């Protein structure tokens, strides 16, 4: 019962990743793709925490921690690039 609920939650998260990737495909211009990449990174952090809980290894959480820092730096760099001048 509980495991079924967790599985359903993970599948809905995977569907959210796919929907954000559809915006990545059709998005007109690079700015829409930057927004889609941001959303995909945030959803991936959730999925990494889910995989860490599913495998029962606490050390996998470090990757989610690294990603939550890397996503911030990358999006700010892309914003500076769009603003004409890195």
């Amino acid at each position, binding site marked *: 019962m509980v495991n079924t609920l967790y599985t359903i939650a993970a599948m809905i998260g995977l569907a959210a990743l796919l929907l954000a990737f559809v915006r990545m495909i059709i998005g007109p211009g690079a700015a829409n793709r930057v927004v889609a990449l941001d959303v995909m990174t945030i959803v991936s952090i959730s999925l990494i925490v889910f995989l860490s809980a599913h495998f029962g290894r606490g050390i996998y959480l470090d990757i989610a921690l690294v990603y939550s820092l890397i996503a911030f730096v990358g999006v700010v760099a892309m914003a500076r*690039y769009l603003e004409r001048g890195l």
Partner: protein
Amino acid sequence: MITVFIVVLSLVMIAAAVLAVQQKSLLSAVLLAGVISLLASILYLVLAAPDVAMTEAAIGSGLTTIVFLFALNKIRKQGKHD
């Protein structure tokens, strides 16, 4: 259920790679390369290699994107001078 993860992430990775090659705009191609690196990191995590996944996250998704953006910025400045 882990099989569903692997299949979906691999298919999205292949689609992102094909789109990154066919893209006209260079910034969009760099972003799609970032998507490939992100999904590869999750796949390494599924395959029980957390150190490789962390390296892929830090280098493939962070450093490579920023270095590509610096290079594109230099190209744009040079094109403005000439």
